[in-house]
């Protein structure tokens, strides 16, 4: 790793508006929708500043990035700067013409999310009937010759469909398949008891994913992401705080991870206040959990601290109340029982209703 660090990936959250209402959405539960979104000129400038800092990858995400009317201009600027652009989308609302247009402007990859291949279940999870439109969008991606990543967020209600997700991805010749268990933060934490799968469900899905990965090696890359609730050690969240990722929210706030803003007492600057360079290198928010000085036991003396950097700060905050604590997903955390208890509840779970991701109405 360079010292000082250099960001490689910009996660550009272009809007929090979304036609879907998935109950595991990674956005913050109190994310402001469409309030104070930065304009096209600001994104154009931010992309330039990000490239100058070292960024080479841009994930265009949200919410639903297709709801930005200026997506062509944003993609164009990223392409001009030589950045690898990945559109992370629900595929709604999309037309073949619009996709062809984005391709013309230099889009490199399309990552499309699916909730289920059972129409009723898909509608139940997404909060609306979108499956057929998504199938059309997938066909257009392939017809236009764009690389396709399919993403299934896995949880208790769809994880048993994993073998079918794999054969579907094969049948549409996806280039990459992500079978990613929900990470229990944001809306997913809010809905954890309705979503967390049992350990046996995960074991079966993982076995299917690994077998398919070996069989399809060279044709389709298959990524299986575990929920860290059943892991011995925490995930290397964002590759470490302020080490290689920059997240910019729709209102221009610059964060080390999607949900950093949900940690109370941390302050983050926006691209309206300061140049990106200043924020990345010198802001309190980015420097707060860089390096190891902030760590306490058991992380401080742990030989794994160079591997996982103490895990996820947001999970530490939301589960233990202390953002500087060890990630409770770690078996060495004194708070690990909080995670284990959620897992035990999942194993014996009775149905719990989703709270859909809805903004602008009272919950």
């Amino acid at each position: 790793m360079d010292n000082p660090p250099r960001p490689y990936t910009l996660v550009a959250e272009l809007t929090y508006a979304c036609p879907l209402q998935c109950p595991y959405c990674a956005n913050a539960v109190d994310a402001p929708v469409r309030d104070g979104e930065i304009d096209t000129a600001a994104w154009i400038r931010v992309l330039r500043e990000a490239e100058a800092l070292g960024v080479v990858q841009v994930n265009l995400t949200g919410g639903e990035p297709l709801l930005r009317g200026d997506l062509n201009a944003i993609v164009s600027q990223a392409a001009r700067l030589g950045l690898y652009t990945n559109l992370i989308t629900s595929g709604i609302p999309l037309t073949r013409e619009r996709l062809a247009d984005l391709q013309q402007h230099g889009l490199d990859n399309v990552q499309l999310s699916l909730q289920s291949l059972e129409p009723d279940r898909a509608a139940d999870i997404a909060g609306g009937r979108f499956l057929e439109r998504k199938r059309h969008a997938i066909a257009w991606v392939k017809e236009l010759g764009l690389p396709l990543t399919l993403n299934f967020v896995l949880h208790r209600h769809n994880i048993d469909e994993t073998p079918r997700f794999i054969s579907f991805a094969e049948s549409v010749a996806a280039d990459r398949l992500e079978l990613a268990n929900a990470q229990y933060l944001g809306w997913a934490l809010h809905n954890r008891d309705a979503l967390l799968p049992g350990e046996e469900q995960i074991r079966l899905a993982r076995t299917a994913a690994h077998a398919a990965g070996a069989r399809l090696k060279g044709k389709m890359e298959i990524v299986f992401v575990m929920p860290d609730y059943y892991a011995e050690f925490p995930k290397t969240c964002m590759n470490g705080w302020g080490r290689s990722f920059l997240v910019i929210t729709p209102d221009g706030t610059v964060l080390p991870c999607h949900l950093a803003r949900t940690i109370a007492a941390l302050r983050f600057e926006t691209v309206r206040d300061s140049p990106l360079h200043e924020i990345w290198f010198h802001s309190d928010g980015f420097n707060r959990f860089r390096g190891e000085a902030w760590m306490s036991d058991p992380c401080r003396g742990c030989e794994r601290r160079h591997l996982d950097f103490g895990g996820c700060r947001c999970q530490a905050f939301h589960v233990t109340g202390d953002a500087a604590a060890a990630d409770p997903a770690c078996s060495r955390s004194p708070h690990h029982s909080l995670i284990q208890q959620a897992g035990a509840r999942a194993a014996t779970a009775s149905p719990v209703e989703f709270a859909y991701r809805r903004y602008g109405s009272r919950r």
Partner: protein
Amino acid sequence: MTADALPRLAPKARLKYDRFSGHYLLLFPETGWLLNDTGMELLQLCDGRHSLAMILDVLARRYPHVQPDALNADVRSFLAALAERSLLRSHG
């Protein structure tokens, strides 16, 4: 991979010169690899027109001091690593 195979980069992968490191990056969804000079030379030959035999031949002439067996093993292991991540297409 046979000697007649015509490897080329998968559409999802793209090369970019990185002025920070002075090396090329191979970019693909979510991540990328920093290439050393020989990795870059090899990838430039993976254009769907050079067969594996031709690629080995070109590199052998460029690096006459490297044992042919060692060169062959290096090239094949790099191509295998690319294939593992579905970054290579090969015809023939």
